[in-house]
């Protein structure tokens, strides 16, 4: 483990040069959200729980038909989550609202990928298999890159990505695609938005939808909770919700405004951009090693073990 003077300085010269060429530090974190993405506005006051969206979704995405498609009776007794065979599901919630005969009023809520403006899944993905489409804003999955680490599922604040756990060799991450291929065509709508008979799902540019949502809140005082869910949650999502009941009551979690990837990405980039800190550490350790090697070559008293 001899570290000669010449090799040491040769090496340190090179690392020093590498460190100094490092340009100004990574800088503050900036959102990578596309400027004008599409979105969907879900108005929970309009949803009647017909589950046509589930049916359309299965058809468009070649998934198995939804569980008991024509029976709305018992399916709502259990709470369902999107999974590897259903990108979207509708659940029924009784939140304490009653009609004029004191009968409990249900609220139906469709759940699917929110297509975050700064998706945690895409930031987490080890190979970049999940990306946010620059134009449509859809968060899409490229199975040819995926290694199946499931970090996207750990990262997602909405617990959306599902996994084909029973496929031993080629399992896929399964989640709503925003019907991205249909969106890319002129006038294309996501399957669920196209079929919705009550216009509970409105498709459009996110900016337009935000205006529309706020208009509805303004024009129907007392009907809605004064909050557009998804406007600011985790930095904003392409899908937006308005509701007459609190969002937590329909399993839409309270989330911070800060985009999920911000903290980890800030730490990673400020430490590792241009590998400046590993290179600097290498140089410091090299210097230590060189110095201790020089000391060793002189005859010297041995290291004294723990004193009494």
């Amino acid at each position, binding site marked *: 483990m001899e570290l000669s003077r010449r090799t040491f300085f040769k090496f340190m010269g090179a690392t020093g040069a590498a460190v100094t060429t490092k340009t100004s530090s990574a800088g503050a974190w900036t959102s990578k959200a596309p400027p004008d993405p599409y979105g969907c506005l879900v108005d929970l006051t309009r949803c009647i729980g017909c589950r046509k969206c589930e049916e359309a979704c299965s058809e468009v995405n070649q998934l198995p038909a939804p569980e008991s498609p024509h029976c709305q009776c018992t399916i709502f007794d259990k709470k369902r989550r999107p999974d590897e065979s259903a990108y979207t599901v509708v659940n029924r919630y009784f939140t304490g609202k009653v009609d004029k005969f004191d009968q409990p009023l249900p609220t139906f809520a469709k759940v699917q990928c929110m297509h975050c403006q700064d998706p945690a899944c895409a930031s987490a993905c080890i190979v970049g298999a999940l990306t946010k489409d620059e134009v449509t804003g859809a968060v899409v999955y490229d199975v040819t890159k995926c290694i199946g680490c499931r970090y996207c599922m750990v990262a997602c604040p909405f617990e959306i990505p599902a996994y084909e756990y029973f496929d031993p060799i080629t399992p896929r991450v399964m989640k709503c695609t925003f019907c991205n291929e249909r969106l890319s065509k002129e006038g294309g709508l996501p399957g669920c938005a196209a079929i919705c008979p009550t216009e509970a799902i409105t498709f459009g540019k996110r900016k337009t939808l935000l205006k529309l949502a706020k208009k509805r809140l303004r024009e129907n005082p007392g009907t809605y909770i004064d909050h557009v869910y998804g406007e600011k949650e985790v930095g904003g999502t392409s899908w937006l919700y308005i509701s007459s009941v609190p969002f937590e009551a329909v*399993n839409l979690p309270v989330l911070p405004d800060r985009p999920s990837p911000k903290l980890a990405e800030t730490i990673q980039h400020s430490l590792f951009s241009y590998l400046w800190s590993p290179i600097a550490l290498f140089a410091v350790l090299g210097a230590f090693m060189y110095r201790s090697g020089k000391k060793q070559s002189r005859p010297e008293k041995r290291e004294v073990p723990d004193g009494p």
Partner: protein
Amino acid sequence: MDHKSAPLKKKFFTPGVYVMLAFMAAGAIAIVARFIGGIGYVSNLTNARPWGLWVGVDVATGVALAAGGFTTAALAHIWGRHHYEPITRPALLTAMLGYTFVVLGLLVDIGRSWAIWKPMVYWNFNSVLFEVAMCVMIYLNVLYIEFIPVVVEQFKGRVNLPGSFAFLNRFLNRLLALADRVLGKVMWVFVILGVVLSCMHQSSLGSLMLVAPTKIHPLWYSPLLPLFFLTSAMAVGYPMVVFETTLATTSFQLDSEMEILTPLTRITVFLLGSYMVLKLGDMAFRGTYVYLLEGTFQTNSFIIEMLFGVIIPFAMLVSLRVRQSRKALFTAASLIVGGVVLNRINVFIVAYSPPLAENRYFPAPGEIFVTLGLIATLMFLYRFLVTWLPVLQKTREVAS
């Protein structure tokens, strides 16, 4: 250097080895089942709970407990404390085997094991996991290179293959001689590189969970997680050496190495103390102590982790009498090792509570068998390699 490593040359098959073989067989069956029926067939992992025992123990804990490799290398080779040379080889072997098994564990855990090479081609610099994967991959190779001299020492000029392979002897001997010459000159690069890579991915393992702030219990979720992971890895390095050395010297009836372990753990007082101050300071600063008396499973697990894994062993190690007593030192070291194991399990499994879906997780028998099987295989290989290669220190009667 007045120490000399030597192969053990002791009886290989003991009752303990048969127990290991039984665990290995159970693990093998579970792995075969995983590759026939899928991850879901052998595990309790769900969409809400994508990471469980395999990531928490096989990967995160495996990496942490292999920290003895880079911490001893830094001490003996970089700081030049050659007094500690005898422990570098067993620590290096543990690290090498540990990281090998991290990769084997990953091959079982990731859905598309055959695609494990893809991060080398598709880069995502935003991904913490990408950085961890790159570091682990390169570091594993560095560890193999660092281990080559051990093989060279045993076989240089002595390669003597039987029968029809005999024609390879001269070639292999030359190869070993060449490796000896070249590595002697460049090994310092790999030694430093090993320490740098370790610092990078030990800390980044802690950053992994930063992307999920709403799922991790606030007692653990802190922007300082990477620093905690790095300092706890450094703190557990030497106790892990104590733990192993004591087990190895007892099991193989070698000389105890207290004259090395006693001063070694004096450094741990400082490292573990720093970790303790950081953790307690973070708790005070963020005000998370309000959760301590909730009495839930999570908070109790945190209290056990900090009390038995950090505070008590720290108090023990401060005393020189503890550091000089083989039994007491082993107890303290075991507590620290157990504390770091529990910390990694806590961060990756216990602290993780997805708010939306039904979430109850306890590892399935299949998961447990895979993990135990991998650990048993690691121990088996350790025993095999120290039996035939010069890793452990010679007993003094023989050496002199």
